């Protein structure tokens, strides 16, 4: 399994050009963030001009052509490990694209929502820090780096959520802060046991030396619990919806799209590397995921606010990702290959669609000035673009063709059928139905014409366009899914 994550038995140094590109990808965002804090951009153009995705695209093509790299990076007496394979490069690209989209959106949002300059300026360094921590999580190949990155990500995410400064935002943020910190401590406890038992922190070495046994199981159980809390997986998801209720849309977009998934990524990586034969545990996680799909769908269906609908839909959609555990662990090569591709496609498709959805919801809220679903009456005529974006993003979430969500769910379905794991088929079907139910509920409110309001606020077109672009990308990812999937074929990055 360690080859799936681009881990080599004997790491060798990165080529200099690649190292330079990676350093740039890691160091540039916080620096740019600090610059932007001092000189906040008034226009999306300078934000969009940041060419980091181009560099990552180059890295991606290099990795796709010559295979992944796994290299040690010495920091004094510490021996850290980084790896760059097709998967981590794709995730890095996704992160940077979403960050830029969210930053560009934030520029318009600040002006439209008339946010005070000082509060808005803090967003930029936090976005930069979040980008770096996410990049580190995709790249890191040892538990120490992962711990540092996880903590940085948690703090940046919490701080971003607090920026609106209203009481409900502060209360929700406080809860998030406490749970994020305690989740990391549970993770650290697991790491302590692993370090005590096997004496090392690098993932490649651990995956080679760790033997299944009670100590390993207890360690993995502890750190899984912490990560599940941070990833907002049912039943530990309850902090998520209040946090999104009052956060700014660009922040919600990044959080729902990427932050919760970073914890999932670490979790999957550790399970596959440390306890690849633990079928029963994987089924427990699959069960939690199924419960999340249904629970999130139900709550989204009866949520009162538009942002609550989107937040609970995140809870449900994260559940699909957890189906990767029973489908990848203890199954045949063919099943695992299908589930592997389906999982990452679901992650990417959902990230794009959810970011688009949060932005579209933010536009609707800003334009109507209220957060309730009932306030959407009459928007179908007045704000067609925002609603269309919402609808296109929902197509991906529902898993209708030709979206990425459809391809991903199709792959997962095939894997479940091939493995004979029928319960997940049912979960996939029910989840899609529930998604359709809550999406159409939102649309039903928008078509109500009984008390049409006429005081919708005009928003800059750019805000709608960014969201639309993301939603269309999610849709287009389904059409061009072959390109990333070819790279994600297990061992596909290998020469």
């Amino acid at each position, binding site marked *: 399994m360690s080859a799936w994550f681009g881990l080599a038995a004997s790491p060798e140094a990165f080529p200099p050009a690649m190292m330079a590109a990676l350093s740039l990808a890691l160091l540039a965002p916080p620096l740019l963030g600090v610059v932007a804090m001092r000189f906040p951009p008034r226009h999306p153009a300078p934000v969009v001009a940041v060419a980091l995705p181009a560099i990552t695209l180059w890295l991606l093509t290099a990795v796709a052509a010559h295979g992944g790299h796994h290299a040690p990076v010495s920091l*004094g*007496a*510490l021996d850290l490990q980084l790896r760059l394979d097709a998967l981590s490069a794709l995730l890095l690209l996704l992160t940077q694209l979403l960050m830029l989209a969210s930053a560009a959106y934030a520029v318009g949002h600040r002006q439209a929502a008339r946010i005070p300059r000082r509060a808005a300026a803090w967003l930029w360094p936090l976005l930069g820090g979040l980008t770096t921590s996410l990049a580190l999580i995709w790249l890191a190949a040892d538990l*120490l780096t992962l*711990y*540092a990155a996880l*903590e940085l990500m948690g*703090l940046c995410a*919490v*701080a971003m959520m*607090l920026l609106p*400064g*209203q*009481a409900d935002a*502060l*209360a929700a*943020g*406080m*809860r998030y*802060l*406490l749970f994020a*910190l*305690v989740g*990391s*401590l549970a993770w*650290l*406890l697991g*790491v*302590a*046991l692993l*370090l*005590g*038992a*096997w*004496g090392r*922190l690098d993932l490649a070495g651990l995956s080679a030396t760790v033997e299944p*046994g*009670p*100590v390993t199981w*207890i*360690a993995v*159980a*502890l750190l899984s619990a912490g990560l599940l809390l941070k990833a907002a997986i049912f039943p530990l998801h309850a902090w998520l919806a209040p946090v999104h209720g009052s956060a700014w849309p660009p922040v919600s977009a990044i959080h729902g799209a990427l932050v919760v998934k970073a914890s999932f990524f670490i979790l999957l990586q550790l399970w596959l590397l440390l306890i690849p034969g633990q079928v029963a545990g994987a089924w427990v996680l699959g069960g939690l995921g199924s419960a999340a799909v249904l629970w999130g769908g139900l709550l989204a269906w009866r949520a009162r606010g538009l942002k609550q609908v989107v937040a609970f839909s995140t809870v449900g959609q994260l559940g699909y990702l957890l189906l990767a555990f029973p489908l990848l662990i203890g199954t045949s090569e063919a099943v695992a290959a299908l589930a592997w591709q389906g999982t990452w496609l679901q992650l990417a498709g959902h990230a794009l669609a959810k970011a688009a959805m949060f932005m579209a919801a933010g536009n609707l809220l800003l334009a109507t000035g209220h957060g309730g679903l009932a306030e959407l009456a009459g928007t179908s005529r007045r704000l067609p673009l925002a609603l269309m974006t919402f609808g296109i993003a929902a197509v991906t979430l529902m898993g209708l063709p030709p979206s990425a969500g459809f391809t991903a769910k199709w792959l997962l379905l095939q894997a479940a059928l091939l493995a004979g794991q029928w319960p997940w088929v049912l979960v996939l079907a029910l989840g899609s139905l529930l998604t359709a139910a809550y999406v159409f509920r939102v649309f039903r409110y928008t078509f109500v014409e009984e008390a049409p309001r006429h005081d919708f606020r005009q928003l800059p077109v750019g805000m709608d366009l960014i969201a639309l672009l993301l939603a269309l990308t999610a849709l287009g990812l389904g059409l061009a899914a072959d390109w990333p999937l070819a790279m994600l074929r297990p061992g596909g990055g290998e020469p």
Partner: protein
Amino acid sequence: MSAFVPLVHAGLLVGLALVCLVDRRLARACLAFIGFALMMALAWWHLGAPWLGLAEALFGALFTGLALLHALGTWSREPGPPSHDHFLRRRRQVPIRLLVAVAWAILVAMGVGLLLGTGVVELLAEGRRRPLLPAGLAIMTLGAWAFATHTHLLRRLLAFNLLGSGIFLLLAGLAGARAEVQALILVGLVVAWLGTLLGAVLIRRLHALESRVTLVAEDEPGGGE
């Protein structure tokens, strides 16, 4: 003598942690935490990690202590939150939470015990490390219990800090004072300080805006987080 000093040290640590978590007078609990953090610094120094000890004294005792006192409004002209925690959890919730915390502690203890049983850690060879494990386990359990039970936000912050310290002690007790361990603990210390600082600012703001010191909403009587 050489075996006795660490034992007293460990006992002091657990005692201070207990005071810090049980005392309902918040100023005293915070002071107990500062003392506890200084004891931790001493423990790192004993373990042969003087720089880590210094970092603990700086981040754990000084900065975190300052943040906690700021949350209490010690230096502010505006009135801070009340200095006494008088929230009570529903009676039937208390034993369940204690039970879960104990089960969690037993789970961790089983892990540690099995580790010792396999002989991977030559614990007996290093007398200085031996008392760290039970002390860490005890402090972690206390922290977990307190975090699950308390509702006052400042006390939850304290509980989180103690939970973290207990885990640091376990980590050092299991793996020694190696570079990786020191790095992990250092990251943990900085994060705990930043988290506490953020939490302290939040407590002040929440109190100023809505004069509340817990996350319990009004429509959830006696629920508590």
